[in-house]
């Protein structure tokens, strides 16, 4: 019987990173993948959606190129070419991961795995022994009664990425990252988009103040954003759907496409029946901060543990699991896990929202700065946005950074590094930043926190 040091089940951003770290630590590593290498992120998640978002932003900017002194005829969408571009990106990334497996000496087995018992994995007819097992099987959309996918009228993100045409009217259910990003993409391409969300703000996990601003910007761009509103009933009428709603904006809707961006479940069937492994409500595998399950030698990471639901969260967990499988005793500190929603404009955050910080009893102090006052933002024609720094007045510790605006996803990295190093607002304010850049907004927000932002008019009290 084949045996190895560690079997990683799943090759998404959690699994493939864990496998490579395990190999780096000298372990004989094997990866089992039942679908596509790279998992959801690479194939039907982060990567392809960002490819489409780039196309959407480009389309939007070409549409206003004359504002910058460039006269172009009205752009036309070539969906097949757009799909070719997206598929090409996915393919290149996937080949990259496969090459990394090869060069690291990691064996890749295609097939559906099942953990037969601790230390033993079955795939197809084969049984493989392993000292450690890292479960990285990810998650999937949960089908909501009444809103089940049919692949044509009611769809999930996977189908949304394969669309051969832009829908005329589309309803997006759920203004989390998925729903909000697709709403922006289709709106940019000319669809009539209605975005429905249960909570009172879009992107409910983000800082309220910024979410509200994003909602206003989305509305300005023509998206019908209806927060505090849910679908009561969906009726299929041939090629269209009629939606009965309830909540703050219950006016019924008729659309050509419904994207369901809510409902998640964890793919934990792989450990079904294994004693000692507990599951969460969503079927997530319960682990401690060392990524250990209740069974020694069995780890779990990524979406299947129902924690961050972020690719980089899965990767960070994968590193911890691999290190521990190799004999270390590492824990993951979840305090600093940034996230970016690639809406238009982007909204990113790290650490606590202002509200959460207050609820935690922190003596909250805030610094803010608006993009409109930033030189670079003006030169880019991207004046909409703001940066907010949330601090603990007792020590000026930075407990949260939130950014709405162009390049928010990139800029948040500064906030993450600052928090990881336990910086105070002083460090952010005293660093010299390049001019003219958007990053200067971080400095200004930190200076505003200290009551001395140069580019904000003084406030009299």
């Amino acid at each position: 019987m084949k045996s190895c040091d560690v079997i990683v089940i799943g090759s998404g951003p959690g699994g493939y990173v864990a496998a490579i770290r395990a190999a780096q630590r000298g372990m004989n590593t094997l990866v089992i993948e039942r679908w596509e290498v790279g998992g959801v992120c690479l194939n039907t998640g982060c990567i392809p959606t960002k490819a489409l978002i780039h196309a959407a932003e480009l389309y939007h900017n070409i549409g206003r190129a004359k504002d910058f002194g460039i006269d172009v005829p009205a752009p036309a969408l070539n969906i097949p070419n757009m799909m070719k571009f997206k598929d090409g990106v996915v393919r290149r990334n996937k080949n990259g991961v496969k090459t990394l497996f090869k060069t690291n000496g990691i064996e890749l087995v295609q097939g559906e795995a099942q953990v037969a018992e601790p230390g033993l994995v079955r795939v197809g007819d084969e049984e493989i022994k392993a000292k450690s097992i890292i479960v990285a099987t990810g998650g999937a959309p949960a089908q909501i009664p009444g809103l089940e996918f049919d692949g044509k009228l009611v769809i999930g993100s996977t189908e949304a990425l394969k669309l051969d045409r832009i829908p005329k009217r589309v309803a997006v259910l759920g203004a989390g990252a998925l729903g909000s990003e697709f709403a922006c993409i289709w709106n940019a391409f000319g669809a009539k988009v209605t975005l429905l969300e249960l909570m009172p703000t879009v992107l409910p996990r983000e800082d309220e103040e910024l979410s509200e601003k994003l909602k206003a910007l989305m509305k300005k761009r023509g998206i019908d954003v209806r927060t505090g509103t849910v679908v009561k009933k969906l009726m299929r009428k041939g090629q269209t759907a009629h939606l009965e709603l309830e909540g703050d904006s219950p006016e019924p809707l008729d659309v050509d496409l419904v994207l369901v961006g809510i409902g998640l479940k964890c793919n934990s069937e792989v450990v079904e029946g294994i004693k000692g492994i507990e599951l969460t409500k969503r079927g997530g595998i319960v682990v401690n901060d060392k990524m250990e399950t209740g069974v020694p030698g069995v780890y779990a990471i990524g979406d299947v543990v129902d924690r961050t639901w972020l690719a980089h969260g899965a990767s960070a967990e994968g590193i911890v699991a691999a290190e521990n499988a190799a004999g270390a005793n590492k824990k993951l500190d979840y305090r600093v896990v940034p996230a970016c929603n690639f809406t238009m404009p982007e909204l990113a955050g790290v650490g606590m929202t202002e509200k959460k910080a207050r609820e935690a009893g922190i003596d909250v102090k805030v610094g803010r700065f608006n993009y409109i006052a930033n030189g670079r933002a003006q030169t880019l024609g991207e004046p909409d946005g703001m940066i907010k720094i949330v601090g603990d007045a007792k020590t000026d510790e930075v407990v949260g950074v939130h950014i709405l605006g162009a390049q928010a996803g990139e800029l948040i990295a500064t906030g993450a590094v600052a928090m990881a190093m336990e910086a105070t607002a002083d460090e952010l304010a005293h660093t010299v930043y390049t001019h003219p850049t958007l990053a200067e907004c971080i400095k200004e927000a930190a200076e505003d926190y200290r009551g001395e932002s140069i580019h904000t008019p003084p406030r009299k009290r």
Partner: protein
Amino acid sequence: MHEIRMPQMGQSVEEASIVMWLKKEGDTVAQGEPIFSIQTDKAEVECESTADGVLRKILLEPDVIVPVLTVVALVGTADEPMPDLAQYKAGGGAAPQGAGETPAPQAPQAPQAPQPAAGTAAPQQPAPQQKAGAGVATAVSPRARAKARELGVEIAGITGTGAGGRVIAADIIAYAERLGAVKASPVARRLAQNEGIDLAALTGTGPGGRIMKADVLGAPKAAPAAAPGGVERVPLTQMRKTIARRMSESKYAAPHYYETIEVDMEAARDFRAGVTAYKLSYNDLVLRAVVKALVEFPGVNARWAGDAIEQVADVNLGIAVALPGGLIVPVLKQAQTLSLEQLATQGRALIEKARDGKLLPDDYTGNTFTVSNLGPFGVDHFTAIINQPDSAILAVGQMKDRPVVIDGGIYVRPIMKMTISSDHRVIDGAVAAQFMGRLKAILETAEF
């Protein structure tokens, strides 16, 4: 050349030390002008020059105890030749510069020591903090003090390698280097500073042994090492003696009584959240409310004068500041003329000055009302001892979310308890109650 001697303050006083020189070498002095202050075992007193001229030589440094009548300085004309100073060396006496630690922070700190009415010129001289083992004067060289100030280092806890255990500049430099070599995150440093914890004594669990916030939070507060099973005798510093004396006097002389109110700080919290142009603490808001209330209640901003009650026009607000080993009360003068921003900014500057030990006599005298806030220490409620010559003191506890009943419904509100201690000779219960009611109203309606 005229000899200035350590005066004998009363028949029973045999020795004294200089607390601080009010003039420096080269200054012109006049007969009768105070040029130094001394600490006897009964009082702190300012001493006058017994001649006109230029202060040519200071022969005795502060904190060194000598027999009374020892020559401490020479006053003469600017160009007079200096006599042989060897004849004055013998007096140096009684102070075998204490062995071991000499921590006195670079500038002396102590609460003011008012002499009621008559008596020698209002001394108000702070006494230096001593930590020497034998209870005798310790020494920190002036260069060491200056170096400590420059490097931002606390002298407390530094062992001196100078003659007799004196802390010299080199000791400060070595300590600072050790501290600078300590790797700690900015938040950890700030926290350690706030809590008075020595970073150099901690172990770090961050990357590369860096000290992180969690390491500081987990550090045990410095506890004095007592002999196992024994009793440690901690010698009295001048500050401790002064605090002991003044607190006893106040409690004895003024009939204290107490009134407590609970203040809903929600409006104040919202107000504060809206102020981002400058740093504004909750304590600043409390001080502001106190000042406004005092303007309306001159009977509370008053003092017992024996044969009358003096109502002072200015609100000179004392702000109690905790120091390592004691406390001091810097005074924000004429607080009623300050805007909220000025009060916050100047108050903060004063407090920092107090913590750096840089207060001058003018900074800690003249109070008419004092506020003491133990909220940061997690205290809900306490009663304070009146800071003479005030007639009242306000003890402020922490702001804490509590369930309250409003119009029959239960809500969660940030509640802060405040207790006024009043001198019943000057302030009657109803007056204090009305004052507190007004204070509460100002805070609850954010009338800043």
